[in-house]
């Protein structure tokens, strides 16, 4: 049973609760991401609406055509009414009734009289569905595909990779082909990196980071990944690439400070990417333990174990717990 309290205190407690419960406003990155999601949902809703309109348009056309048949029949003074075929057009701008008006108001003399034994004329009535204001203009096509295909057919994989890198500067569609092309042209890595380095758009920066992680694994890669994550923290790939950069710094470059920074970035980006950050927490705890920052390492490990309690029995986690004097506290 809930306790009853005096009214005056109720207001004070409710006010304190309201202060504590004030919900966090989303960041501009979260708003931007939600906006993109909404764009996609609007596209899907619009596509459904257009699909649903087609039968309605066809039915409207039949009704209009029926009326037209009556009008034409009257105009032909007792002749057999016309047969009407309906063509449904998506993308025309004139409303449906315009077509009807144009045909219905034409002079009757324009309709040829039916000769005996000759089938009556067929009138084709086009019923356009007005385009939606939500329809997007078609994406501009780029001519790089043909050029790349001809280079690849000629066996010039490095040239194709360079062409794709140049294309990627203005067209995100070139990202995936470039990553594939680089498998056949490892020697073009330096050229591709030079082409992409000045570009500040998300996809080129992501590809530059990924290529570095796949092929070079050096300090420049670390810088490229850091620049990408700082410039585009809301990008869905930012967290994973920050984590991978942390592993590169920890395992191969031996730069524990950089590794800690990258893992920290992966943890912070997790809410934006909608992914759990437990792997990055464990990795940062490990790095911090190696750096001798034990209190922070314990904090990370405690939070990791709070989120992944079953992991306490894994040997590597157990060893870290022992190292940080947390083994006896669980």
């Amino acid at each position: 049973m809930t306790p009853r309290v005096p009214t005056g205190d109720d207001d004070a407690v409710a006010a304190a609760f309201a202060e504590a419960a004030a919900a966090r406003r989303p960041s501009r990155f979260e708003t931007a991401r939600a906006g993109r999601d909404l764009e996609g949902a609007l596209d899907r809703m619009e596509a459904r609406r257009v699909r649903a309109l087609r039968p309605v348009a066809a039915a409207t056309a039949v009704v209009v055509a029926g009326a037209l048949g009556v009008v034409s029949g009257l105009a032909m003074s007792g002749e057999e009414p016309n047969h009407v075929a309906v063509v449904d057009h998506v993308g025309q701008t004139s409303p449906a009734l315009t077509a009807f008006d144009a045909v219905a108001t034409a002079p009757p003399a324009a309709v040829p009289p039916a000769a005996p034994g000759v089938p009556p004329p067929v009138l084709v009535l086009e019923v356009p569905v007005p385009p939606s204001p939500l329809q997007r203009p078609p994406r501009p096509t780029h001519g790089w595909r043909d050029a790349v295909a001809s280079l690849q057919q000629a066996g010039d994989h490095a040239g194709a990779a360079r062409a794709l890198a140049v294309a990627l500067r203005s067209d995100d569609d070139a990202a995936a082909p470039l990553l594939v092309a680089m498998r056949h042209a490892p020697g073009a890595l330096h050229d591709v990196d030079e082409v992409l380095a000045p570009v500040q758009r998300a996809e080129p920066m992501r590809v530059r980071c990924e290529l570095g992680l796949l092929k070079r694994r050096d300090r420049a890669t670390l810088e490229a990944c850091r620049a990408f994550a700082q410039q585009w923290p809301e990008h869905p790939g930012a967290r994973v690439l920050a984590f991978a950069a942390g592993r590169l710094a920890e395992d191969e470059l031996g730069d524990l400070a950089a590794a800690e920074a990258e893992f920290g970035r992966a943890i912070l980006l997790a809410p934006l990417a909608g992914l759990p950050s437990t792997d990055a927490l464990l990795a940062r705890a490990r790095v911090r333990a190696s750096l001798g920052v034990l209190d922070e390492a314990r904090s990370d490990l405690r939070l990791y174990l709070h989120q992944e309690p079953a992991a306490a029995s894994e040997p590597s986690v157990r060893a870290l717990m022992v190292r940080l004097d947390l083994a006896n506290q669980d």
Partner: protein
Amino acid sequence: MPQTPLAHLVSSRAPADDEALVARARAGDRAAFAQLFTRHHGRVTAMCTRLLADRGRVDDAVQQTFLEAWRCLHRFEGRSRFTTWLTRIAIHTCFGLRRRLARLVFVGGAGDEPLPELEAPGRTPEQMVLARAREAAIREVLASLSEKKRTVFVLADLEGLSSPEVAEVLGVPDATVRTRLFHARRAVAAAVRAHPGLSDLLDQRGPARGEGEP
């Protein structure tokens, strides 16, 4: 006299702004609608977070709200402010979502929405754990309120709308809003006192009148 947040929003942003954007959006200008979205996304998100309490994804509710707004924009006649109209849609969407989810049976009882990540720069892991526990407690308290009480409490005490503004949103008399708010605050206070995770709120305010006395 200090302005309410809604009044401040309206006065500081030039009312014509929303109206002009709505007019353009009604003509099919999706860029104008995107501007309306950017402008109101934060407020709608915060409101849905608290209206949904412990059930339903906030992102889904917010997106559904704006989709519904786009779909019904041609019916918006401008008799009320766009903010009021959008708030009304958000309330209906959030409670509709809650009711639909309430009818579903989740295997293993995992029907509740997971808590959001509360990581933030400068927060230690312990602080984050505490923040998550606090968030869970707040959701439980709000979930214990009826829909009517929660709505007026969220709009008036969390979003800072005045009672006439809440009355306009809900389409009920001002006196009804005041009555509901009075009962909502009492229910919140009782739930807070009964919740062990929110005892620090009471500590800040000291013992209630009549408590601790023989």
